[in-house]
């Protein structure tokens, strides 16, 4: 279970996350959507102990993320939006170190690594230094690494960016299987709305650090009298392209517009 209560994160005077609250049920597949700079990654960083919230409370698997970091860390796995592999180690070494850090039983370690590297088609490159991988290959390795251990809650921050269609499908099949078989909670962000529509049980849309709406994909579409999730999303967040933090007045105008749409 994931619980976010009155969460705020400010950088100077700017609120990247501005008083957000929501809950995600165990086993649920939950998508956090929003334009560039909306505060999705910042929210995930706070949930995964990388950033300290300015105020508010966070619970993972009923552990207080701020007070019980160590217990909270035992509850989740994460695939980051930004690169996070060691490029001076081989693919196998990256997988192995991760498995050790996450206490994967040594009996299963080799088979799990092999299965996952085969899944993302990197098994024959397992002994190459990651430095020599293409961008997509690195991303595939990060995905595989994020799945080596089986956490209660899995965070995926734009997992499919830069992946080919085949790998995207493989990823979602695998993630959906994990969620169904192990009752794993999936918490993801994406800019591909159809991905959220097919793979999320519930969706939250945030913009300028504020929660605009939350509900099942069909509810979001119905409530905004739209035909597709994309239409609903655009109605809520506006059509303007985001120049992050460019002009506070613009940001304010956007916010007012978004409010009037609700």
């Amino acid at each position: 279970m994931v619980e976010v209560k009155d969460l705020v994160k400010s950088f100077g005077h700017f609120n990247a996350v501005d008083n957000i609250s929501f809950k995600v049920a165990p086993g649920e597949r939950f998508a956090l959507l929003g334009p560039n700079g909306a505060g999705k990654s910042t929210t995930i960083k706070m949930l995964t102990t990388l950033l300290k919230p300015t105020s508010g409370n966070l619970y993972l698997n009923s552990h207080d993320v701020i007070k019980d970091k160590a217990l909270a860390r035992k509850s989740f796995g994460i695939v980051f939006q930004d690169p996070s592999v060691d490029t001076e180690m081989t693919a196998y070494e990256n997988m192995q170190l991760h498995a050790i850090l996450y206490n994967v039983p040594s009996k299963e370690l080799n088979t799990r690594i092999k299965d996952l590297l085969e899944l993302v088609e990197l098994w024959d490159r397992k002994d190459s230094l990651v430095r020599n991988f293409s961008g997509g290959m690195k991303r595939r390795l990060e995905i595989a690494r994020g799945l080596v251990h089986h956490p209660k809650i899995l965070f995926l921050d734009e997992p499919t960016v830069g992946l080919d269609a085949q790998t995207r499908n493989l990823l979602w099949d695998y993630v959906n299987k994990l969620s169904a078989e192990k009752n794993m909670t999936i918490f993801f962000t994406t800019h591909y709305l159809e991905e959220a529509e097919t793979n999320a049980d519930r969706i939250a849309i945030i913009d300028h650090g504020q929660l605009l709406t939350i509900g099942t994909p069909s509810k979001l579409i119905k409530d905004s009298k739209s035909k597709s999730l994309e239409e609903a999303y655009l109605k809520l967040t506006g059509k303007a392209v985001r120049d992050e933090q460019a002009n506070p007045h613009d940001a304010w105008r956007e916010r007012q517009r978004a409010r009037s749409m609700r």
Partner: protein
Amino acid sequence: MKAIYYLWLRQIKRFFRSKSRIVGSVGQPLLFLLALGYGLGSIYKRAGDGNYLNFLVPGIMAQTVLFAAMFYGAMIIFDRQFGFLKETMVAPTSRLKIMIGGALGGATTATMQGLLVLAISYVLGFRAAHPWMIPIALFIMFGLAIAIASFSSGIGSFVQDMQGFQAINQFLVFPLYFLSGALYPLTNVPTWLRYVAEVNPISYTVDAMRWSLIGVSKFGIAKDLIALAITIVICIIFGLNRFNHIEA
């Protein structure tokens, strides 16, 4: 235990994979040995103090270990810049283990570099007073390496970029080293310099190295080892404290 071992192994592997780091690690000490050892040797002899190369080698070994162990902090900054740091920071492995594993790895590679410099010194004509005491020198180097690797993990935890890290090297580590008596005897120096050397933790390691390799000590080995032990404890506490507060 396993986590510590694999984090240690990562440092070892990365060291041996970087040819430039191995070459670079002995380049500077070699320059010091050649330029100072041969350049100042005759003056030193005329002053009646004996063989300068013998005097210099333990100091240069300490220098090598000092800067090599400082480099471990730079590795943390690289890990932050390349994003790998996040991977270890969110893992359900305690920060204590993560720091110990990495710092032990950094200390091991630093000690190996110190040994390499000893080997080169032998080629240049250096001879230990009692070869059977070389393992003691090794032990002292490792102690220094642990202290400095812990210290540098602390620095790497809150300094965000290499420029900041280099500034610490320039304004703290270099002065500590030059004022430690690694390059000149502390017997005939001005009083202020002697006082500085006496509160400088590096002086005691250099002195202990000298004691184990050429049988000469200014402070006495007991005092040296106590100072080294205190340095190790303080550096580990500092490193852990800072490392615990990393925000990636």
